């Protein structure tokens, strides 16, 4: 336990001293800010028409300027933006050990490799949850500022759980990203994987088989193409879990067994 706490302390320090938290927080903050902008536009259709293209885009995304629509937008941004930003965080936490060539110093220690990998995963999870809470908090502030109609406490609580659920499902799919960073010993292979998975998730979802493809599940959960219950079944969540476990197993295996020549 002591060595695990040491690994957790080390990973937290590395994360806090890096620019990754700042950049990912700034990047993710764009979601509620953009949502707020759309709400301003939607509240005043006359002005929206005057704004041309931006207005017509806003019309496509939402049709009624109210809290329900705004929360839905936040959940969708968490699904798509989260897949990118969470992958950046995961790629950095694992990939930097290889690009900075520090992985070799983590191999022959009294603190086991499994504890180091676990500490990394916990730090990633903690940061992802904090980011999600942050954008929801910013979302509330922006929504209040824009004075969106249709607020109820129940809606806010349910929406918070929806956003958190979307983030959790996306987070579960970060273990394959960790694997590609470890296997590829760099930032680029995991980011390549992240882009590929987003691309595939869109295509598979468009064919109507998204419920069977783990990487489509977070977006479907967020309600991007309609009510969740019509899109997803228990099998969808099980598949996300299986994909996550496969990624975890592969990552731990790679750290335990693969030759570390970098």
């Amino acid at each position, binding site marked *: 336990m002591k060595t695990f706490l040491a690994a957790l302390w080390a990973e937290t320090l590395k994360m806090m001293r890096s620019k990754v938290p700042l950049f990912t927080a700034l990047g993710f903050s764009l979601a509620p800010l953009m949502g707020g902008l759309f709400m301003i536009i939607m509240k005043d259709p006359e002005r929206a028409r005057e704004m041309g293209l931006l207005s017509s885009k806003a019309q496509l995304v939402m049709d009624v300027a109210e809290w329900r629509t705004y929360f839905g937008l936040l959940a969708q941004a968490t699904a798509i933006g989260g897949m990118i930003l969470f992958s950046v965080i995961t790629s950095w936490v694992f990939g930097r050990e290889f690009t900075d060539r520090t992985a*070799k110093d983590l191999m022959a220690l*009294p603190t*086991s490799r499994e504890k180091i990998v676990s500490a990394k995963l916990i730090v990633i999870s903690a940061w992802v949850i904090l980011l999600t809470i942050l954008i929801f908090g910013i979302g509330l502030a922006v929504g209040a500022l824009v004075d969106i109609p249709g607020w109820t406490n129940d809606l806010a609580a349910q929406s918070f759980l929806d956003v958190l659920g979307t983030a959790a499902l996306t987070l579960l799919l970060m273990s394959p990203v960790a694997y590609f960073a470890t296997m590829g010993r760099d930032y680029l292979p995991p980011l390549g994987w992240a882009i590929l998975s987003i691309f595939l998730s869109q295509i598979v979802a468009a064919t109507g088989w998204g419920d069977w493809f783990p990487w489509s599940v977070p977006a479907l959960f967020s309600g991007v193409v309609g009510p969740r219950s019509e899109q997803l079944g228990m099998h969808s969540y099980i598949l996300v879990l299986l994909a996550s476990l496969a990624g975890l197993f592969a990552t731990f295996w790679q750290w*335990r067994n693969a030759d570390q020549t970098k």
Partner: protein
Amino acid sequence: MSFAIETNGLTKVFGNVVAVDHVDLRVERGEIYGFLGLNGAGKTTTIRALLGMIRPSAGNVKVLDQAVGPHGHGPWGKVGHLVESPSYYPELTVRENLEIARRLHEVADHTATARIIEKLALASYADRRAGTLSTGNVQRLGLARALLHEPELVILDEPANGLDPAGVVEIRELLKSLAEERGVTVFMSSHILTEVDRLATRIGIIHKGKLIEELDTDKLERLRARRLEVRARNLEAAQISLQSAGYKFVMDDSTIMIDDAHAIEHSDDIAQMLVNAGAPPTHLAVRQQELEDHFLQLTGGAK
């Protein structure tokens, strides 16, 4: 017998390349073992195998009587290491980098970090970001990391890399004192012969993945010994003269090699004696580079 390092038939193959080929190493406790080889000879691969960073294709490794691997298991709390170029987290300070090492090594003593910073002369850089350090100070940081937890065995890959001449001497003295005063076993690789020659009690020479020779203390002493080389036109008269004066020598082609300390220190007397014997020397020189010659001969390098 208990060894600090023991490998049996250690072999590592990458694709078609045999990086390490059936290496049998025995490093005794308290020894300073110099692991010498040209670039690409297999030194770093051997070191990575010793530390469980790569899985041997064949053979096995024991460190401090404990089998290494296959899942990274080993007596790592008692082993310090520096593999290839030292690595560090550039955004963290020197102190933070070492503090991470202290905690991951389960060193309870909080003063250990400050002590090693002092010992490796890093005090004035302690709160500077590691990414801003010079090459020499990065090397000191790597060595500090390797020594912070007061290991029984240190495995160092090219420890003098990037250090200035004063730094090289300082690290040499530090390693020597660790071995002599605390009985620490030092296993250090290098491609620079003079670096290991001045420190090692035993040298292993690796070439093309094979451990081609081990030089123990006696052999090292013999190879390190200076010799007086004599050549003369009248070689026979020179030999008779030296024999009658009681000097022992060996012939190497047309060169007389004298090991005698008196002859080496008083080469002018030898010259006078040969002149008097009617065999004036055409070449008279004290040679000290025998170990280098030996190494180059073994590894096929230019003489």
